[in-house]
């Protein structure tokens, strides 16, 4: 792959990574709009610093750190929204474009995973990161990343098994 940040057209590059980045950001923030803000901020910073594909983990690391900052900064707002939303019907902002019931069940199973397993799964499956890159992005060892991935798949299999 050619260096991600040396594309003349950032639009091509962004359209490749944006869905996966958004999905990754939504591990922390519920709202798609908030996730888009985080992804925008991270991508612009990444692009400005002209990082290349070998440092792709940095882009994900930036998304993660911005998302965590966002949670801390907006904890009050989040609480207020949670209270308001608890009274209303739950918002429908799906993480995936679902085609049938089987996919809905699979998506629900993914969303029910513990966060540490889910973020590894998201990075591996929908962002095509290697375990090395995942380890760099999440600040964990490669072995931990691999074992979390394995646990995630095991849990998914258990959840999806017919009772």
């Amino acid at each position, binding site marked *: 792959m050619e260096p991600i940040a040396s594309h003349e057209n*950032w*639009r091509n590059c*962004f*359209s490749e990574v*944006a*869905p*996966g980045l*958004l*999905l990754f950001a939504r591990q922390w923030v519920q*709202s*798609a*709009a908030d996730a*888009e*803000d*985080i*992804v*925008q*901020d991270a*991508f*612009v*910073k990444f*692009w*400005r610093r002209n990082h290349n594909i070998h440092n792709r983990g940095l882009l994900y690391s930036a998304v993660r750190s911005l998302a965590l900052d966002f949670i801390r900064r907006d904890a009050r*707002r989040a609480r*207020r*929204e949670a209270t*308001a*939303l608890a009274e*209303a*019907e739950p*918002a*429908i*902002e*799906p*993480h*995936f*474009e*679902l085609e049938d019931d*089987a*996919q809905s069940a*699979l*998506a629900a199973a*993914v969303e029910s995973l513990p966060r540490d397993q889910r973020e590894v*799964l998201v990075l591996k*499956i*929908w962002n095509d990161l290697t375990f090395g890159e995942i380890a760099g992005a999440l600040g964990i060892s490669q072995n931990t990343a691999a074992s979390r991935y*394995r646990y995630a*798949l095991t849990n*998914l*299999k258990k959840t*999806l098994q017919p009772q």
Partner: protein
Amino acid sequence: MNDFSELEKELRKLRPAQPSSVLFERVGDALKDCRASAAADAKPRRWRFTEWSRRRASDIDGKLVRARERERTSQTPYSNWWSLGFGLAAAAVLILFAVVTMERRHEERETIAQSSTAPKTQPAPLRAERSTVPSRFVPAGGTNLVYNTRDEGLHFADGSERPLRRVRYNTQQTWRWRNPETGASVRVSYPSEEIVLIPVSVQ
């Protein structure tokens, strides 16, 4: 790992939700801004309160975010203009205030200079006035608020066989002075710590 190959295949078939077209425009704008000004950091442009209230409304109605996104981005430039407007207004008020204060001082000096018949002694009243202003403040009261008391147990002072109980007080002391003529008051407040040794008689 082969046990999971089917599951992985199924997972890969799930397609993440696509970003809104507005996001592309926003990233494009932010990158353009970056080129124009390296110092300008690309923060997401939003007006939190408006965005929140709109989201709540749309969520309650069960509508998706597309329309909201359009509305939100159409509002974003205003947030910048509002901040700019408030900033400029605040700066203007500050400048106005500074100018008025300076003019008033200047006028006071001129009045003193004009009313003085002995130019040689002119600085003396000014100095006297300055020096007497603080002296007009008279003590108006003080408080010593103990907000924490800690008993640190028995201790023996150097060379003494008699035990002493050591108690540590954390206090907040506040002193007030008041100028009876102008009504101005000065208040000084500071935290302090006091350790008291109380002799203990053992029977």
